[in-house]
């Protein structure tokens, strides 16, 4: 059938750039120097490029940086956003709509609109230094700050991710929570539970599907961020993998084979998350659009 043939052709087209990157990454550099990139592997394929990038480019170290930023980022975003969504959908306050609008619109702004004053805030907000957690010789995770500022700190990157993505998560979670009847909150209040408890043990468990979807999506958003880490971090040591990749180019990633291996290592975690949690991923994106 024509349609199937067309779609298969499209699938091949879609996968080709990835396939080509995988192929280039598996070929030893010497092989491609002699035969060019568009050639059959004369000396076989190997993982040597991955080995080189992994050790010389210190990939595990940058993965750890990403982890330190993304895990607290996702958890805090979900906590804050679910609180706002809970207050604005379960109670009829006068300012519900304006609060939700502020959060939603804030997330739609291009980040570059706010970056100049934000950069100044990051350079002028005093943050206490409370020592650091050191793992091994190279990895030192400052508690709060190691230069008294928000600038060039893990905590600064976490903070802007949380604030920016809370806008998106609040919008999506409000859409979800408004389908939960207010009677549940009311009867819990009658039973004498306080609002914090109702939020945590009554409403949040009901939102599990939405929270799972958001967690998946937020993980990917924060993992893939380039801009905040590029501007608000100055030390290469603190960069998450996505931003570090750009720095590695020209320094360690000196040929296409290594570039391909580096890029593929950097995108492996989101791809794994996507393959394992595809349902949540898609649900997260569509919750934000179709229910609205």
């Amino acid at each position, binding site marked *: 059938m024509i*349609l*199937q043939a067309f*779609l298969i052709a*499209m*699938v091949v087209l*879609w*996968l080709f750039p990835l396939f*080509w*990157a995988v192929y280039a990454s598996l070929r030893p550099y010497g092989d491609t120097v002699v035969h*060019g990139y568009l050639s059959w592997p004369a000396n076989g394929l190997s993982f040597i490029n991955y080995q080189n990038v992994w050790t010389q480019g210190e990939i595990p170290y940058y993965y750890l940086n990403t982890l330190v930023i993304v895990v607290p980022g996702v958890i805090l975003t979900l906590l804050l*956003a679910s*609180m*706002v969504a809970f*207050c604005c*959908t379960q*109670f*009829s306050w006068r300012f*519900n*709509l304006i609060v*939700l*609008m*502020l959060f939603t619109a*804030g997330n*739609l*702004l*291009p980040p*570059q*609109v706010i*970056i*100049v*004053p934000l950069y100044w*805030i990051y350079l002028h907000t005093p943050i206490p230094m409370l020592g650091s957690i050191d793992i091994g010789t190279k990895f030192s995770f400052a508690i709060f700050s190691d230069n008294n500022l928000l600038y060039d700190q893990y905590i600064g990157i976490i*903070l*802007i991710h949380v*604030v*920016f993505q809370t806008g998106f998560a609040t*919008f999506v979670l409000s859409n979800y929570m408004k389908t939960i*009847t207010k*009677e549940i909150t*009311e009867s819990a209040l009658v039973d004498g539970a306080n609002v*914090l408890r109702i939020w945590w043990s009554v409403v949040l468990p009901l939102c599990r599907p939405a929270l799972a979807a958001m967690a998946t999506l937020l993980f990917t958003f924060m993992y*893939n*961020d*380039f801009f905040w880490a590029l501007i608000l971090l100055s030390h290469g040591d603190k960069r998450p993998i*996505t931003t570090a990749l*750009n720095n590695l180019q020209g320094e360690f990633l000196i040929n*296409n084979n290594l*570039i391909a291996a580096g*890029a593929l290592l*950097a*995108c492996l975690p*989101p*791809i794994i*998350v*996507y393959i394992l949690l595809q349902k949540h991923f898609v649900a997260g*994106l*569509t919750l934000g*659009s*179709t229910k*609205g």
Partner: protein
Amino acid sequence: MANPTTSVAPARSQQAPEAGALVARRKRRYTLLTRHDKILLAFMVGVPLTLDLVLIWGPTVASVVLSFTNWSGIGPITDKNFIGFKNYQFMFTGYTLFWPAFLHNLTWLAWLTFIATPLGMFFAVLLDREMRGTRIYQSVFFLPVVLSLVVVGFIWELQYAPTDGFINNAFGLVNSGHLIDWLGNPRINLFAILVATSWRHIGYIMILYLAGLKSVDPSLREAARVDGATEVQTFFSVILPVMAPINVIIVVVTAIEALRAFDIAFIINQGKNGLELLSILITNNSISEASLVGFGSAIAVILLVISIGPIVLFLSRTMRTLA
């Protein structure tokens, strides 16, 4: 809607006894909240809201104010720093990179709106037919969406590189000596990265649109078929109008993506030589290369003003059902 407590007002005048009961319940809801509860709720909204105001909306307003100054980012701002519309004047008339960047953002928007987004919608319509392998096709088209634009940039550099890239090799341009410098030639590099961007954008739109199509009442299609409409007719005169809400969301998503464009152009060549974008000019002028805070802010204001359109459209379509 289904919950009677939310529609108190109209009921009151018509059905007195029942309405009385409802009003009582409504009142009780407020008295149920203790002082303690109210303080807790104020914190639960107050903390995130304060952060949002300080780190998002404060800087937005500050950008507007700073755009009227010649502040360098160091020291206090005094009356002398306020220079009226001079930044804007210079931006529109003297700064040679502004109009190219503006045009590139516009091209970006046009490309996404008229090429990538319709393709994503087209894929969604095809995959909505639930034939064999739909799930696999869907997974494949969506795969690039989970990649960061940095990685997308790297992956496409392997296609576009002049002597080592796939494209020039595959079409024999390397051997014949007619190399095309896809990313280096300022006349074509914007379109080269737009192709790479579309690789990701199409899957994103496809998923959004597919979810919308799934929510269309199947009896509508059935009725159109009975009336003898072709599939194309059915789509344009039945499905598309029903999908109006999601169409708006897709237009907004597309516009916002075009205005936010930054990463991939920065990765390729720091947004120079044909890849200038408003977002990149802002950071270059105020942070990375110079400290023209006021001037960079003026460019940010332009970006803000353009963004207001899609943002207001989005809010007006989504907020009426919320809260």
